[in-house]
């Protein structure tokens, strides 16, 4: 009996130890390069800021200045409500005190300067594809914006999701930290599009359905699904019949510029904000994104409850 107890305690200790080791947010820093980067290119940072849609989540709600990065926007999910934090260059409330390494750890590894995991509501799962130089450019651009005082409200997450360590386990299962690797067999335009769509653009974060643990179901990546934020349906953007099969490359690029579909419907909901961002890119970048999207194989997403819309 006593022996049984000892064994039990031993297992508990081993289990807890294993949990702590496995979910350790320590960053295997991706970058010996960080110290040796060229001077940041603020213009490129501005472009990535638009491509990444940073202001769509981090701009303070209830006011019109999209460059006020005070945060606070509520993001609903099946796991609770997240509040986008202040990413303005305010030294106390924002990220003004961050170095490039802090920013790279956050964007490419999902770890905060104080060594805690970020929840994947912050799409570092996509942003990780940006190389340290691009991230340094982006940080340099954010530093040119106004410092905003005040912190966003805390996330409202029930147990066990309120324990950030749990995200460490999630990362073990679902987080692929590899950087972007161009496909030499494909054109330069295709590779640029693949990078913009999968990296800064993080299109798949909304245009894919997710499994029970909130990770993108990779088999139906880009194939749309129910809107995790509530009502509605996120469209399939693969080459499926119900997706973008009938859209030309030019029509996709046009949507990213003006928000108009080929039959001159105007996209709504959060895609309207996305279009405000992609409208700031160059025609060449929008066409590159379209080139990549046109290459996605046709994949059927989860079935829609009602019959397909127009």
């Amino acid at each position, binding site marked *: 009996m006593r022996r049984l107890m000892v064994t039990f305690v031993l297992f508990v200790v081993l289990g807890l130890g294993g949990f702590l080791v496995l979910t350790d947010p320590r960053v295997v820093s991706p970058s010996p390069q960080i110290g040796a980067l060229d001077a940041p290119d603020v213009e490129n940072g501005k472009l990535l800021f638009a491509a990444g849609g940073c202001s769509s989540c981090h701009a303070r709600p209830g006011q019109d200045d999209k460059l006020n990065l005070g945060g606070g926007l509520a993001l609903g999910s099946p796991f609770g409500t997240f509040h986008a934090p202040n990413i303005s260059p305010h030294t106390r409330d924002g990220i003004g005190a961050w170095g490039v390494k802090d920013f790279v750890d956050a964007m490419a590894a999902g770890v905060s300067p104080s060594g805690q995991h970020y929840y994947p509501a912050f799409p570092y799962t996509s942003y990780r594809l940006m190389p340290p130089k691009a991230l340094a450019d982006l940080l340099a651009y954010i530093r040119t914006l106004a410092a905003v005082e005040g912190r966003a409200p805390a996330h409202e997450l029930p147990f066990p999701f309120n324990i950030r360590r749990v995200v460490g386990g999630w990362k073990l299962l679902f987080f692929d930290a590899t950087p972007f690797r161009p496909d030499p067999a494909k054109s330069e335009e295709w590779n640029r599009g693949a990078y913009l769509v999968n990296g800064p653009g993080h299109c798949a974060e909304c245009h894919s359905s997710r499994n029970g643990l909130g990770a993108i179901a990779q088999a139906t990546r880009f194939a749309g699904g129910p809107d995790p934020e509530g009502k*509605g*349906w996120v469209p399939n953007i693969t080459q499926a019949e119900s997706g973008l099969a009938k859209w030309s490359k030019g029509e996709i690029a046009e949507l990213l510029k003006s928000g108009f579909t080929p039959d001159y419907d105007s996209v709504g909901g959060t895609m309207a904000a996305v279009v405000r961002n992609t409208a700031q890119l160059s025609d060449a970048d929008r066409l590159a994104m379209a080139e990549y999207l046109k290459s996605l194989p046709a994949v059927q997403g989860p079935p829609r409850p009602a019959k397909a819309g127009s």
Partner: protein
Amino acid sequence: MIRSAFVVAGLLVGLTAVLAQSDPIAERKTAMKAVGAATGLGAKFAKGEEAYDAAKAQGIFKVYIDSAKKMPALFPATSKTGGETTAAPKIWDDAAGFKAAFVKFEADATAAAAATTDLASFRTAFGNVTRNCGSCHEVYRIKR
């Protein structure tokens, strides 16, 4: 006999009118499709894919103005769901803001019509007024 036939016929006409009106979801979809078709034509003019036609250009703004007048009444509280509507609940939560968006759309379309004298001015005016599409859909429409 003839009189009662007239009465019945009159009632039928009235009933048809009521029935037609009682499907606001279908009606507002038709109105939005007309706006979309007009915008498609305007985009062809703007891009030079179709020869600019002054009368047709004014017709585009007329479609906008007419629909802006008609649309607010097509969202009664009984039409929140059904018919594959993509209307967002916000339309009814913020009815004042929703109506104001159409007032702005109508005013912008009227101004655009007045400012359009040739293709160049049409391009600018058309660009200004169509900004209403996205800004209104962003708030009052769900994803689809």
